């Protein structure tokens, strides 16, 4: 009986955490959508939007290119552009945080940095 109860609690806890995660993903998507058209936002969201517009590739294609999910891409949009003086270290921190390939991300962030410099 006790084990059944603890199992129920564990299941409901898991369901609750999954629900929170879903809410979080939805909220993150909304924040990114509202920040993307704002070029002065101090995050990667507007740069990603600019990159997408320039390359003609949508968010899905970009996520595929980086080998990440849509939500991870949204997380990336809420990162700050790595500092020029610590570019590699900061990129590594972002890659660890997102759990994606650091070399691939570094190359992509370099492109965003160029875009940022040009704009």
């Amino acid at each position, binding site marked *: 009986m006790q084990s059944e109860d603890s199992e129920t609690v564990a299941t409901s806890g898991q369901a609750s*955490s999954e629900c929170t995660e879903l*809410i979080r993903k*939805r*909220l*993150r998507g909304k924040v990114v959508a509202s920040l993307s058209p*704002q070029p002065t936002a101090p995050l990667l969201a507007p740069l990603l939007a600019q990159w997408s517009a320039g390359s003609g590739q949508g968010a899905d294609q970009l996520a595929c290119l980086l080998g990440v999910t849509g939500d991870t891409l949204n997380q990336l949009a809420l990162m700050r552009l790595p500092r020029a003086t610590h570019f590699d270290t900061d990129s590594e921190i972002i890659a*660890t945080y997102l759990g994606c390939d650091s070399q691939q991300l570094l190359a992509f962030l370099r492109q965003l940095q160029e875009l940022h410099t040009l704009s």
Partner: protein
Amino acid sequence: MRTDKHQDDEPVEQSSDQMIALWWQGFLTGTDPTGFDQVFHHLAPRLLHHLQKRFSNLPVDDLEDAVAQAFEYLAMHPVAFDRKKGTLFGLLLVIGQRRVIDSLRHRKRWVALPSSETNEGKEIEPEIPDTRTGTEETAIQHLIYHGKDPLDSLRLDVEQFLTRLLPDPRDYALFRQMIDGRISVETFAILYACDNLPREKQQKALKQNRDRVFKRVVRERNQLRALLTSCPTHI
């Protein structure tokens, strides 16, 4: 860096203010590129949870929009947060509530008119009789908006003062609508979750609450005046 991602799945969990402040500082200085998302990760579900508790009669989608707008504001105005004045969550809550109230006001302006079929042969029901003379209320309105357009956003410090004075968000929303123009019975009924009552009772409840809320602000008008004259800068 992503140390406690799985420890805080409960939205109401009180994340350490120190950790939040650390991530925020990292974001501000650029030393932690993940800082903003860390703050978002910990505070967004909590903020939504609080807004849901306070505005339980509003659709979740509207509240999610308010959360998103609060974070957008924070990203665009990172210096709005002053550690000496409170927590980051407190600031987000104030902004989130403001956005919810703004959306309510916007909705109020776009209330659909009854169809002509139902209006045929009937007089359109007038709004609740407005007995205000305009003197006291106009004075308060001028004081709060400082001669600016009432539809402009309210100063953050004034808003904080008013939310302290009217801790019930429904009272706060009612007061904002009072000074922005005429409050409609429909909006009031949604706000106070009394839309199931007959219209006459809704009107009566609106009048009672309007008088109660307004008197509370009038009593503190000197303090409000002092606040406005001591710190005239706008956020």
